[in-house]
């Protein structure tokens, strides 16, 4: 391997970590190498610094706001940081964020898995490629456009469905409709579902495509129908992939700002019915309240942003963990 006379960094196979570091140190003896290594390592470190700075600065501002909060930051049903004394709490925002995301997930996950299966197992080969391509493109449509479409097209077209839900499910209380504009958490959930469809579909599709042919053939050879093949070989293999795809989608739904801000008619209370306008989400509240916020108001919004940050971190972290596990699992099996 040591074909190079001046430089023994030619090993193509990654050696163990400590040898690696020594090697890097030795390899960096000439100035060019040293500078280049410094630059690239510096970039990596810079990235870590940004992450740390995000945590530090958000926490600082948030601490400042929460210390002045006369209400309970977690349970107060009010957002009035400019009052004297300031009173604000994230209860309504947490509720709205969670509810709209749950609705979005309940719709988007099964539909996305369906589309992913459609692309990989049902559509004629010639159709599957272009469809996947279009879904890819749709993942790139900016949320502001989804918001515009949601507010100007989806909201007016929801009335019929709302009337229905009210007629047949109104007795539950959850689907009671007073007849107002459909600018509710429910519509937000539907819009979020449309928005996260592409990403969940794309990730699930990749997972389904990786199902080894031999597992599917094993099921086929036992006399399984197409659906039985999917149930026996494809879905079990792809389950963790579907979960992590859903988590990535959930992360998006939780943090979505503009589309929610444009569709929801916010209020600082929790209504029993999902169909009534009102409620709010973390991100929406920040965007809607920001331009009228004073100094303490901005800090209060930053505090709520910190909560959102932590939630999305947890969700994304869980998704990555599942993906990493799955890699090990399939690696051991390959």
């Amino acid at each position, binding site marked *: 391997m040591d074909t190079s006379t001046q430089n023994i960094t030619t090993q193509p196979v990654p050696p163990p970590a400590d040898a690696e570091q020594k090697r890097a140190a030795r390899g960096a003896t000439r100035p060019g190498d040293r500078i280049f290594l410094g630059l690239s390592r510096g970039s990596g470190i810079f990235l870590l610094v940004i992450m740390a700075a995000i945590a530090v600065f958000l926490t600082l501002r948030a601490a400042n706001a929460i210390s002045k909060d006369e209400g309970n930051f977690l349970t107060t049903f009010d957002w009035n940081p400019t009052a004297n004394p300031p009173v604000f709490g994230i209860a309504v925002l947490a509720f709205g964020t969670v509810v709209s995301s749950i609705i979005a997930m309940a719709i988007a996950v099964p539909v996305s898995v369906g589309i992913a299966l459609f692309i990989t197992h049902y559509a004629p080969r010639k159709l599957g490629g272009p469809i996947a391509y279009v879904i890819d493109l749709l993942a790139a449509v900016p949320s502001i456009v989804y918001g515009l479409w949601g507010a100007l097209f989806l909201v007016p077209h929801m009335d019929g469905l709302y009337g*229905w839900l009210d007629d047949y499910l109104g007795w539950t209380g959850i689907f009671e409709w007073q007849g107002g504009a459909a600018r509710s958490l429910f519509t937000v959930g539907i819009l979020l579902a449309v928005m996260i469809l592409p990403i969940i579909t794309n990730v699930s599709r990749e997972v389904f495509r990786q199902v080894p042919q031999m597992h599917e053939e094993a099921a086929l050879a036992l006399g399984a129908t197409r659906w039985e093949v999917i149930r026996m070989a494809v879905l079990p293999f792809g389950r963790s992939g579907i979960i992590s795809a859903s988590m990535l989608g959930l992360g998006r739904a939780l943090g979505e700002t503009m589309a929610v801000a444009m569709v929801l008619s916010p209020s600082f209370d929790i209504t029993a019915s999902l169909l009534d306008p009102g409620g709010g989400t973390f991100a929406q509240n920040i965007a809607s309240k920001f331009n009228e916020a004073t100094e303490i108001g901005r800090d209060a919004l930053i505090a709520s942003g910190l909560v959102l940050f932590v939630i999305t971190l947890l969700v994304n972290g869980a998704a990555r963990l599942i993906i990493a596990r799955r890699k090990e699992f399939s690696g051991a099996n390959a």
Partner: protein
Amino acid sequence: MSNATLSGKRPSSLRGATLPKWFPWAVAAGSIALGLGISAAAGLDSSIQWALIAALLFVLGSYGIAARVEGPRQAKDRVATSLVWVAFILAVAPLASLIYETIKRGVKVLDGYFLSHSMGIIADSEPGGGIYHAILGTLEQVGLATLISVPIGVLTAIYLVEYGRGKLAKAVTFFVDVMTGIPSIVAGLFILSLWIITLGMGYSGFAGSMALTILMLPVVVRSTEEMLKLVPNELREASLALGVPKWRTILKVVLPTAIGGITTGVMLAVARIAGETAPVLLLVWVTPLINSNPFKDPQASLPVYIYLQYANSGGQGPGYDRAWAAALVLIAFIMILNLAARGIARWKAPKTGR
């Protein structure tokens, strides 16, 4: 016909009753007709309603008929098939509608004047005006963000692929993943608290660019990493064996080989941040006038322009038309970037050794 073949305990039955090929289509047509009929009879006017009724009828109908004729296993298979089709249509319908509506409503005021003029002193309720200032702002903000994040992102990826395997590299990999999941509004809040509140700087295009950089960096790192990993090790070895130092090997051999893929990744990242609204709204503020200096004073940008035109129009009038037209321009810009990026990827693909 199976009488003669009864050699075992089980009669041979390769030839189960099978429904004809046109069966799903017939059921689909029937369900749609019935759905429309029911809706008309019950006076339901929403297309969502009759479509839902039709979808339900389609699934139930295929199950019922197939269960009776072909048996439960085949019926389940058919239901799964029809559900998958329904899922596909359910998803495609809103997405198609989104594109259709944007184009239909967007072309109304979209012309050369619209693209080459700012709003100036035209009120949001009056007709006229354009998006020149917003396009300029978006291009500058996105351009600055790209200028910052591409070198840092590519260098980070080089570090991860070519140098790093220790703890630092692991940490960087992990936090790049974490960064991918940061909601855009949080990135905006961070720059707000750092740049505007703590350092006391004013609103500017550059402040927005910094937030966009945070969103763009992880995408650039990830895609560059993937591309660098595709470069065959033989190339690196060949160069190193000639006595070329490692840094020159990376610059002259590795990067050029992967450049197509890296460009694709960068363009996709640009497409992603070009539509970001929330951080720009927080940090750049807005102006109806042309401000070509991204380092001083508020600037306009396309996404925020769309938002404000919509918010101030109340869903009708000239502002509403302008919002759709600007949305069409934004989508077109992003789609063109996407298509170009994929074009480059395809064009360069054979050279990256696959």
